[in-house]
């Protein structure tokens, strides 16, 4: 239902700022002025260990651990569904989405009077799939509530959320310990190095390290619009609001404060990010705000020395996470809206050190909300929790309780729905690929990072085995490893190249996924078969794959090889004839004479002939067999030559 907006309304909607960067910053500068006096300087004699969360005091060259950080994480993930949570308004996942400000909104998204919320079935389904993958206890009945606060980009004056009756409770996430990306080498990548889908090198030494973090709850809620500001002059700021995002579906995932270190926080977020991408429930793009992270950081004393400092706690209403917190823990500081893994690490470290310093200075931090300034790498106070907003929760009267029944799930039961819709999880697939096919963990990680690649991999192997069914004397045991290597190294490299072609560090044309491969599993299997059957050499196969990916997207590799005359010559007689032709060729008579002189010349001239024969065969000669054939022909033509 498109509604005409008054010209005045449209005017105020007009979007002037076109700068593509974090709008939050605009408010920050303003708030920074208000609160800058309370921001403490980073101390030089405190050190933070990002791997274990320990803050140490460096004194007289001695390093004494005194405090340790405790971190709780809240994630807001925008679900990849084409319409809004409560309206048919298009999201960025809708084919007709228009990125122009305030054009992708339905009348309900801007709270036009007389419009009512209609719950999106696909949002519920994706939220349920996400919750199931996080091993949550999914609630058959959950409820919506209104959370009231006033902000220009909140069209209703409240956000519809699920505070007291969330969709899911008590989940877990198994995380692989974070390894910081290595600095990019200027040298060209060596062949055979393993490239994962993000282009970072996997660090094999940390692959086996896992830890688990609990999830308290997952709830569905509405996203807000976006505010941008520009200053008119020194005293005035103009705020412009874009409601395109308003009403999109978010799931809020609240983790229990069971981790201690900045790198663990980074692991949790990146693991969750790839899991949601794998499930296709969220695109995980932190830079676009599809995945937003808030950290709750506090510290607790480790040593007696630490306990000497009073870590005074503000009075707080019942903290649901008290049971997870160690004795003597200080006030919880919330750092809001972190939009990269790097910012998560930086802000956790900054907070741990700042809070320790505050205690050392005799002024422990209060309960407060802060934000991260990427320019300085500091967190900046936004508000005290003492002046917390009363959200005046109200059961949403326009929506009945959400029952996960057939109407919503399209299946008779939750179990049946999940059986059909929940894929094998990446960690399960990883273990299975390693044990079932004997491939390396590194390859298995790459394959399981891209959900369609799992099926692609297994199909390729199957096709290959079918093709080789009647061949005798081939080693089938190595097929899986071979397919894994070709898929992870060669094919992914080609996909990545096509995704980034002509773009200098800009967005990708498309995600790096086998979904965008021009070579499907059938054709890759045919190529593998050619290699196994020694119809083509590895070098030829690489050339073939390049052609199959970029030039001839239809033909089978065998036909392409034929057309180009790429066919390994393995017949001994053929090879010998080839040798004779080259050796006895008139223009090579000088070289043959030289060979016949024997001594050093034998090796030198053999090499010369081998190169020329290979050239003559257009690279088709089987290298090893050619060596044998040449020896035999030379011996035949000049039997008495000695080395």
């Amino acid at each position, binding site marked *: 239902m498109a509604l005409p*907006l008054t010209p005045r309304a449209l005017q105020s909607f007009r979007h002037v700022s076109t700068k593509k960067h974090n709008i939050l910053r605009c408010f920050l500068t303003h708030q920074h002025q208000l609160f800058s006096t309370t921001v403490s300087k980073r101390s030089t004699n405190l050190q933070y260990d990002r791997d274990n969360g320990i803050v140490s005091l460096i004194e007289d060259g001695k390093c004494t651990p005194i405090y340790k950080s405790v971190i709780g994480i809240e994630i807001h993930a925008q679900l990849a569904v084409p319409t809004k949570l409560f309206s048919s308004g298009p999201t960025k996942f809708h084919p007709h989405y228009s990125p122009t400000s305030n054009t992708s909104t339905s009348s309900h998204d*801007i709270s036009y009077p*007389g419009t*009512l919320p209609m*719950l999106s*079935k696909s949002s519920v389904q994706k939220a349920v799939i996400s919750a199931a993958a996080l091993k949550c206890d999914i609630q058959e009945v959950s409820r919506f509530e209104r959370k009231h606060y*006033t902000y*220009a980009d909140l069209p209703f*004056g409240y956000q519809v959320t699920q505070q007291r009756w969330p969709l899911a409770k008590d989940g877990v996430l198994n995380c692989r310990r974070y390894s910081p990306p290595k600095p990019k080498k200027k040298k060209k990548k060596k062949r055979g190095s393993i490239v994962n889908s993000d282009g970072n090198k996997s660090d094999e030494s940390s692959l086996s390290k896992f830890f688990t973090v609990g999830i308290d709850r997952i709830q569905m809620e509405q996203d807000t619009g976006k505010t941008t500001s520009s200053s008119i002059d020194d005293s005035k700021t103009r705020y412009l609001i874009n409601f395109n995002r308003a009403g999109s579906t978010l799931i809020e995932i609240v983790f229990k404060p069971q981790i201690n270190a900045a790198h663990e926080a980074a692991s949790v977020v990146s693991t969750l990010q790839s899991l949601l991408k794998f499930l296709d429930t969220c695109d995980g793009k932190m830079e676009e705000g599809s995945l937003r992270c808030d950290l709750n950081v506090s510290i607790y004393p480790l040593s007696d020395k630490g306990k000497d400092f009073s870590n005074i706690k503000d009075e707080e209403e019942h903290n649901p996470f008290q049971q997870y917190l160690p004795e003597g823990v200080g006030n919880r500081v919330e750092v809001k809206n972190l939009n990269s893994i790097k910012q998560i690490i930086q802000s956790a470290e900054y907070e741990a050190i700042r809070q320790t310093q505050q205690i050392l200075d005799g002024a422990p931090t209060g309960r407060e909300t802060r934000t991260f300034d990427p320019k300085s790498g500091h967190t900046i106070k936004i508000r005290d929790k003492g002046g917390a907003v009363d959200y005046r929760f109200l059961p949403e009267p*326009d929506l009945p309780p959400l029952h996960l029944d057939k109407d919503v799930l399209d299946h008779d039961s939750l179990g049946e729905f999940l059986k059909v819709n929940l894929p094998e999880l990446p960690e399960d697939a990883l273990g299975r690929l390693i044990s079932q096919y004997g491939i390396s963990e590194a390859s298995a990680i790459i394959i399981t990072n891209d959900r369609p690649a799992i099926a692609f991999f297994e199909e390729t192997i199957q096709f290959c085995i079918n093709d080789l069914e009647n061949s005798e004397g081939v080693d089938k045991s190595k097929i899986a490893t071979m397919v894994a290597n070709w898929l992870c190294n060669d094919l992914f490299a080609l996909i990545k190249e096509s995704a980034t072609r002509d773009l200098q560090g800009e967005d990708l044309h498309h995600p790096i996924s086998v979904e965008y491969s021009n070579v499907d599993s059938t054709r890759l299997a045919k190529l593998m078969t050619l290699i196994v059957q020694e119809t083509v050499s590895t070098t030829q196969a690489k050339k073939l794959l390049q052609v199959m990916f970029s030039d001839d997207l239809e033909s089978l590799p065998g036909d392409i090889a034929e057309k180009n005359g790429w066919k390994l010559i393995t017949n001994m007689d053929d090879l010998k004839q080839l040798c004779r032709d080259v050796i006895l060729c008139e223009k090579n008579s000088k070289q043959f004479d030289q060979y016949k002189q024997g001594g050093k010349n034998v090796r030198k001239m053999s090499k010369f002939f081998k190169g020329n024969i290979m050239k003559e065969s257009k690279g088709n000669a089987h290298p090893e067999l050619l060596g044998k054939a040449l020896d035999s022909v030379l011996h035949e033509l000049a039997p008495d030559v000695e080395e």
Partner: protein
Amino acid sequence: MSRNRLTIPIIHKLFHQQTINPTQLSTYCLSLASSTNETFNIFSCLNSIQDIIDLSNESHERYKAGQPLSILDGIPISIKSNIATRDFPLSASSDMLEGTPGYDALLVKKLKRAGAIVIGQTNMDEFGMGSLGSNCNRGYTVNPLPFLHDFSLDESIRNIQTLKIPSFDVDREHIVSPGGSSSGSAASVSMGSSFISIGTDTGGSVRLPSAWCGVVGMKPTYGSISRDGVVSYASSLDTVGIIGSSVTCVGHALDIIKNEKKNNNTLDLQEDLRDSTVCFMGEDIIDPESTDNSLEGLKIGVPAAFSITGCSKDVHQAWDDTIQKLEEKGATIVIIPESTISSETVKMTLPAYYVLSCAEASSNLSRYDGLRYGLSSSGDLDVPEGMAAREGQFAIVRSKGFGKEVQRRILTGTAVLSSDRFHTHYEGASNVRGTMTKEFNHAFGQGDECSSEDVVDLMIIPTALTKPPKLGTDVQIDSTEAFQNDVMTVPISLAGLPSINIPINEGDVSHVGMQIFGPRLSDKKVINTARILQL
């Protein structure tokens, strides 16, 4: 009925016989509405004469061809100003919504598809908040009942044929409240400028003005008409209601706008209805074949708990008379004892209603910040000291745009939802609502432990305790005292039950109405009983 009001079945017949035609009738109604509006202040907007003539000519053609769209084809109707229509701006009689373009609410679409002709948009208490029709941004509406002419049916027809608009002699002495909040809707039907008016009833806003204006007003079961296009006041109570010149008129309109079940997937259905809180009545209300005119076998309860001391003598008398009439028609009267419906619960419903409705109102009205639609918040504003620019801007717009009563209720609602009052006030009120609903269900035999002997089919109580108060610029209204008018209607609203007001004759001008109500989704029985009672 003492007044020979034209009813829809009669008009439908007259159209078929071509005694009068739709063009004559709608021209007459529009002229009546516009010529009296300065005095009575019933309409906030009227449709243009040309549009009305075009629409009614089309209807006339259909009748000539013997193919009217429905029984409502060519019938002039009006719509309360908190229901969106494409014809008028959406105002809810508030300055806050200034210049907000309208669109056709689902129920308006259905009425237009049935051939009804929307002649105008009626005044109301701002956002539905009020019981007297006096909290309107265009001033109060005058109750036309004391000033009506007692035309015979033939005289009425002649007036329409000759476009002879009667004049009204309004003396200030007799100006009384039409009741609210659907004040203009009830007044319009009472005067005869529309034959159906669609209103909304949150705590009695259709039934009270119907009683005081001497017309029929029905609040169906909560959720049985989609709220799509209705400006929200208190979502869990807001119900679209119908005001008409007879019970049958109301029944016909209800058949057209009630939610229809088309297939089995309830979610898809809600998608069509654009409302997630809908329910379905099933069968049609009006059975044209029915010749039923006896109430034999029907058990009608009289809940003793509603015999409240504030009830005026006239009203009590009318209650007794109606009970007697029901018995004459064959119904069995059962007094419902205090033990089933307690007066303590009934008394608590009024404060509970105000807690809940204010809480929801404060939430529903928080969207009005002057940014996206309605009253302008642009330009340089003098922001109150100590406020950030943004908050100040909102504060100015909301202070300017909302009337006093609306502001009072927003503040009340904000208070009862605050974390220190939520449990005592909001949850307390919700508990009262639950108890009242349970007691009604018990009386109707819908609970668990009830013996079939005590169970009643329907109940009857007065719609209002008193007759309408005087209105005028010199009359002071105490807003808390005004709440008292709702005591007979809010218990039924809290339980979401269907209830119909029927006017009771008491000499020429009665202003007294009785409510017949029943369990959820018993709308057909309620209407049928009211119809037989009025025969």
